[in-house]
Structures are given as structure tokens and as C-alpha cells.
């Protein structure tokens, strides 16, 4: 039994997923997905294209309504609530405060025409911050944390490189100190050295802030670097789940073995 508040929080699951399924007509995008995510835990969802990873992420983040099953989330007041019962206002509020969503393409997660500072500050303004100086200070300290030169705070992200955009998107999401971050192929489309730096950054931020994260990726290296646990999906099913090292070093399912063996040895 934990005595402190912190201990108590990590004893209780943050996200509980129970029998989740989604059909598009006759097509089953995913089914029978159940798992529990605890605060500070990073879960990777791996699988090939079309295996239902992205649909699952959208279901988990309440952007899609499931055909059956449910997703429950422990709100900041400690109450576990079924996401389907949240009103639209509550869901959108959750999305811009307690959650983060990092898109594969930063152009989808950023406002490309407004400055980096305003991109980071938008969530703060959305929750009622009304002091320019403080918003700017928060934005510049976050730019520093994601290793973007603060001299570029007034430049629009369309003048940024791919790697910088992705880091800016992460800063924009983390500024309200969310407890859960969804990441959809966060390193997709970046070259290898930039990927390595970004992964390093994400890993240290996750540790520092005690974030829980769900990372969808087809890249097993990303899963190995970032995640504590891995779920392997194939054709809408979760075929294997377990601790990252265990699954990747000693895969049981033939499909997982295939995935692991298809990585070129370093």
C-alpha cells in the first residue's frame, strides 16, 4: 500500500481498455483489444501497415467511437471515467490539457503560419492564460527544453526543418503538462541521425515528467528505445504482448519472430 499521493497515483491505472473493437462495415480494423496503462508507463504498439495500429490509437484517444468495448481514463480528480460518456466539451478539454497527440506529420499538429511561440502558447491561452509575458516565458523555456534556439521563437514552423518541427510539436503538446501522450509514428519521415536525437529527447522528457505514453510505430528500434511494454498487432488482433526486452529478444509468435528478424543487424 502506498502512503504518498504519488505512490497512490501510480498504483491505480491511468487508462483501462476493455474488449475494444472497431469495424468499418464488414471490415474489422481491430478487435478484442484489452490492456491497462499505468502512470509513467510507455507502451509501444507495433505491427505492419494495415494492422490496425492507427485505428487503435484513434479509438484510445476518443477520436473514433468504438463498435464495442470501452476505454476508461482516470481524470485529474482521480475518478475513472468511460470516454464514451464524456461530453464533447469535456473530451476536447481533455485533449488540450491532460493529453498530448503527436502526429507523424508535424504540419497536422502545428499551425504552420503562426510563430513557434504562439504554437506553444496556444494551449495555455486555451486554458485561460491571459498574460503575454508569462505565455512567452513558458514558450521559450519549452523551446529550450526541446533544443530549439530561442532566437527562432518568432519564426513560423514552415521555416523549420523536419526535425525541428517535430520537436516543436512535442513542446506544444507538453506545455500543459499532460499525463498521457499519444504518438503516431513520431520519427516517421526523419533521417536516421535526426531520429536518434528525437528519440533521445522524447526518452528524457518522458522520464523527467513521468509521462505515460502510447507510441504507435512500425520501427522496432523506436519501440526498444522508448517503451517499457510492447503490443504486437496483426490484422486487427493483438498477437503478442509483454515487456519490451522480452518480446523483442525472445519472440514467441511466428509473426513477431519475422518482424524481429527482419531488422538488419547493427
Amino acid at each position, binding site marked *: 500500500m502506498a502512503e504518498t499521493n504519488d505512490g497512490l497515483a501510480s498504483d491505480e491505472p491511468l487508462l483501462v481498455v476493455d474488449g475494444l473493437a472497431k469495424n468499418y462495415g464488414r471490415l474489422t480494423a481491430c478487435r478484442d483489444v484489452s490492456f491497462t496503462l499505468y502512470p509513467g508507463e510507455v507502451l509501444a504498439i507495433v505491427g505492419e501497415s494495415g494492422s490496425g495500429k492507427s485505428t487503435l490509437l484513434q479509438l484510445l484517444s476518443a477520436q473514433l467511437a468504438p463498435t464495442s468495448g470501452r476505454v476508461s481514463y482516470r481524470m485529474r480528480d482521480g475518478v475513472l471515467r468511460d470516454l464514451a460518456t464524456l461530453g464533447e466539451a469535456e473530451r476536447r478539454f481533455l485533449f488540450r490539457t491532460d493529453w498530448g497527440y503527436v502526429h507523424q506529420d508535424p504540419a497536422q499538429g502545428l499551425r504552420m503560419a503562426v510563430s513557434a511561440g*504562439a504554437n506553444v502558447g496556444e494551449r495555455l*491561452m486555451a486554458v485561460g492564460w*491571459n*498574460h503575454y*509575458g508569462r505565455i*512567452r516565458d513558458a514558450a521559450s523555456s519549452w523551446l529550450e527544453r526541446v533544443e530549439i534556439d530561442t532566437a527562432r521563437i518568432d519564426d513560423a514552423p514552415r521555416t523549420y526543418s523536419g526535425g525541428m518541427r517535430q520537436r516543436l510539436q512535442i513542446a506544444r503538446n507538453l506545455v500543459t503538462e499532460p499525463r498521457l501522450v499519444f504518438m503516431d509514428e513520431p520519427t516517421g519521415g526523419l533521417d536516421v541521425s535526426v531520429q536518434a536525437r528525437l528519440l533521445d529527447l522524447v526518452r528524457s522528457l518522458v522520464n523527467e515528467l513521468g509521462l505515460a505514453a502510447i507510441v504507435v510505430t512500425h520501427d522496432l528500434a523506436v519501440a526498444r528505445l522508448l517503451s517499457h511494454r510492447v503490443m504486437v498487432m496483426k490484422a486487427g488482433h493483438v498477437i503478442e504482448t509483454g515487456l519490451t526486452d522480452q518480446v523483442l529478444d525472445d519472440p514467441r509468435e511466428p509473426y513477431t519472430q519475422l518482424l524481429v528478424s527482419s531488422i538488419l543487424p547493427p
Partner: protein
Amino acid sequence: MNAPAYNFAYLDEQTKRMIRRAILKAIAIPGYQVPFASREMPMPYGWGTGGVQVTAAILGPDDTLKVIDQGSDDTTNAISIRKFFEKTAGVAATTSTLDATVIQTRHRIPEATLHAGQVLVYQVPIPEPLRFLEPRETETRRMHALGEYGLMHVKLYEDIARFGHIATAYAYPVKVNERYVMDPSPTPKFDNPKMDNCAALQLFGAGREKRIYAVPPYTKVVSLDFEDHPFSRYRFDAPCALCGSEDSYLDEIVTDDKGGRMFVCSDTDHCESRQAQGHRGTESAAPHKEARHG
């Protein structure tokens, strides 16, 4: 009434009823944009088709109409619309702000304080204050519905980041009745404080965008700002060159090709009535002569 081919005030009665229903709804929900079935008017979009339809719908035979364009009663747009209603409705027209019961305006609120019983009709080109930040109509409607207005501050933030101060000088966003954020049409932000707790009814019509919205009399209208960058009214360095007014909105008028210029009230009625009361500015000799011509 010399145009029997038209119904009173040009529009047919069913259309006027439809517009009045939209107006009533708009008054009931201050600042909310009510869609309406905007008609083709005998003038191009951008010339005030929205304002003209609202005016046509509320005009009665006893009304006295004033039309201003940038504060002036005697520019093309103002004269055309005034003539239009003189012809199709036969109502009395005036240039006096105090005598008018209906004032249709483009880009200004008169300097004279409006009184109860008056209606100010604005011509609106783009009713959606969030438009340039969020292009999706479905999304902006949802944002209005849920009161998510953080994005409006992003615009003001950008101004300060770029120019050091809130550089938005017209169409400055306001919050109406502590609920809806509204675009006050392209009036200069100088006029924003006049909207707050105004005794007159304020109606906004956007013809091309097919929206009507309203601020009922005595409604709270607050200009958005930051704590450390509060809303400030534009201030002019010099008084009006004709009437010496120090608290009105001024137009710059180029007087020669050697860089000569003077600043005069944009509200012509305000300026003329001040001159009639004996107020004089630095250049007051000439306009006196002009007034006799008029």
C-alpha cells in the same frame, strides 16, 4: 413613393419576415451568428448587401434613415444606399446622427452618443472572427458553441510578437455578453468602446456570408486583450483641422503634391455640427465657404 413596381423597401414581405426572424434570434443570443437566406440585391457583394437587407427588413414608413460610409454621409456608397431607400421606401433621410432612427454604417460608429430607440446597422464583409486562423466552418462553429476562444488570443499574441503591441487596428475582436466572441465588422478599434453598454440596438448583416448577428441595447461588449498588453484606443496627435475636436476619429486628407496634408473628422455630421456651434480648427476658413455651396 415613385416606384410602385417595388414592394416597400424593395424586398417582398415574406423575405422581410424571414430576415426579421433571423434578427430576433440574433438579438436573443447576443453575438451569435444566425444564418439567413441572403437575397441577391441590386448591388455587388462588398457594397453592403447584408446591411441593406437588414435595413430593408426593419424600415417602417415613419423611420428617418441615415447612411454613412467611413463616417461620411457624402461618399458614393452612402449616397447610393440612401437614394435606394428614398426611392423604394420613400422614407425621410437625414445626415444628422441625432435625428435618425435607423443608421446604416460601413466602417464607423458615429461620434455622437446614440440614444435609445435608434438602430445601428453594420455592413459586414467577414462575420467570422476566427476565420483566418481556422479555415473550417464546421470547426469554428464548434469552437463558438463550446466557447473555445484560445485561438483568438493566438492572433493577438502574434501581433505583439511581431510588432511589440497589438497591431490589429480594425475588426478588433470583442466578447459580447461574456459569451460569444464577435467581429465588430471593419470598424476601427477606436470605436470599440462605443459598442459597450450602448443605448441603441446594433445589428450586423453579412450578405455574401449569409449571417446576421446583433448586440442588444445595454449589452456588455469587451475588447479582448492581455493583462500586460491591455486594449488601448487609438489616439491622434492633432485635433481636427476643421472643428478642433480632440476626441474624434480623424481621416488624413492630402491637400497638395508637396506632402501637405490635414487631419479632419471622419464623421462629417459630427464635424459640421461642431463647426455650426462655433468650434474652429486650424484650417477652418475654407470649409466655411464650402458649407455654403453644399
